């Protein structure tokens, strides 16, 4: 029994080391907590104005990086007064379909509310939730899920 326990500890340490080294290489620059921080899937509304923000699992709160992105979007919208936008709210696949529809709606509205605090009229912003129906990355990996938990600001043509 004692041997087993020791072995278990050794294994735990090995796993921990592996996990840490994995973090320090590939994923370090990609996520913080489980919020995506990379730019692989990001498109731009204008130079330097990212079109999307990312969320933690089951959350709709805005990170400081998201708020910075949205402040730039607000500035861009103030300069382009005739432009209307749709905010698309999305969830990852790790949830029930109906709950994720509600979650996507909540995420899209979190973005809308924040843009409105910078003086953008609610009339210029519509929201739509796609739940988990329109992933940007079709893989079933933690990285893909972090890229799929997003709100995307789309220009209305």
């Amino acid at each position: 029994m004692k041997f087993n326990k020791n072995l278990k500890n050794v294994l735990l340490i090995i796993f921990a080391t592996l996990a840490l080294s994995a973090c320090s290489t590939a994923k370090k620059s990609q996520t913080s907590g489980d919020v995506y921080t990379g730019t692989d899937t990001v498109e731009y509304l204008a130079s330097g104005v990212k079109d999307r923000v990312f969320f933690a699992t089951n959350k709709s709160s805005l990170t400081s990086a998201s708020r910075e992105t949205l402040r730039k979007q607000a500035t861009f919208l103030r300069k382009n007064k005739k432009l209307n936008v749709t905010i698309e709210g999305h969830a990852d696949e790790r949830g029930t379909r109906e709950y994720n529809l509600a979650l996507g709606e909540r995420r899209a509205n979190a973005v809308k509310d924040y843009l409105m605090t910078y003086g953008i009229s609610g009339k210029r912003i519509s929201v739509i939730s796609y739940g988990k129906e329109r992933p940007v990355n079709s893989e079933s990996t933690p990285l893909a899920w972090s890229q799929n938990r997003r709100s995307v600001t789309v220009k209305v043509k």
Partner: protein
Amino acid sequence: MKKIAISFIIFLIFNSYSFALIKVDITRGNLDPLPIAVSPLHVDDKSENIKDLDVKNLGASISSIIEKNFKSTGLFNPLKKEAFVQKPDIAHLKPRFEDWRLIKAQALVTGKLSINENKLKVEFRLWDLTASKEMIALSFTTTPSNWRRVAHIISDKIYERLTGEDGYFDTRIIYVAESGPKDQRVKKLAIMDQDGSRTKYLTLGNELVLTPRFNPSNQMVTYLSYFRNLPRVYLLDIETGKQEVVGNFPGMTFAPRFSPDGKKIIMSFAKDGNSDIYTMDLETRIVERITDHSSIDTSPSYSPDGKYISFNSDRSGLQQIYVMKSDGSNVKRITFGNGIYGTPVWSPRGDLIAFTKMRKGKFYIGVMRSDGSGERLLTENFYQEAPSWSPNGRVLVFYRETKSGPDGKGFSAKLWSIDITGYNERKIQTETDASDPSWSSLLSK
């Protein structure tokens, strides 16, 4: 032998109307399915020919559907026809019981059919080989094109006689047929017989459709459509194809189901980042708000008596299942286990609630009593959800996505069924990938 004698006595005491020996217990996983011989139905030589119908082999086709139905229950073991000891027409008149017992059959189904003046007449008998007695004899007359339904109705009658419970074979499943890559998935409403035959597509796939559910009479379907990029709950008449938006909500409506009397649709309405539960009366068009909470309240499902509603809410932080009175009062949380719970669906018998559970990266389909006690997880997988009950409350159909590539790339979505005993998990054949199944009630009731 002793076991048989005991069950015989119990049977006499509690079922005085019957002297049959065989009975199938469906309350537990059946590891010893009942051997049953389904003789091909004898086709009357004088039967008319019908266009697009192989009349000569119709008896064999009907018996093979019956066999397939029985096999799918896990409760019966249909025997191979090569071993059958009597010609169908003679067996139907009078089986030689001792010969059928020799091939280890305990029950025998025989029958005959004829087509005259464009009417299909089917007669069948169920024989208890252990007691050497006839258990049922019934006949049906219908239009020949209904022959598959006749096979399902016969299956239901035999299932009812042998298990003491309603059958579920003369039923249909509505679901979402899927195709294309995951980021541009095309989804259509599709309907098929319970056994996967006679698939019909009800929408063209131009817009995203989700979560179709039957009304109690199986004529109408309520579902979510992204028509014109406005996600709203719709109502579809299956026969006429007529569609309409349910209500006039200034935002997304989703997660619809019918009330047990079919008069109302219950659904979620999302506004300003908050989803609550509403009902709309289909006749008076009166909309009622049932929940009013800053959390996400969704996936509502009525109890079969219409007095209660179960739903899931994240008001405690993460998704859990709650039960309330149908007017929205008396909200009680019923799930407290480890994990996240969603999509509660009340059993048509009223005793159980089926649900989807997520825990440590796995998805489970389970059942619990309507107060949350007695939780049993029936199946575990990487991703699966959306249970729907067979009309007799014995089987759940749900959908499961499996990764088809080693690196998480590629996937397939299929419908599966499992007994509430946790046994007899089966993939249901569909023409395409499939999700969001909803099981109809018995069509012939």
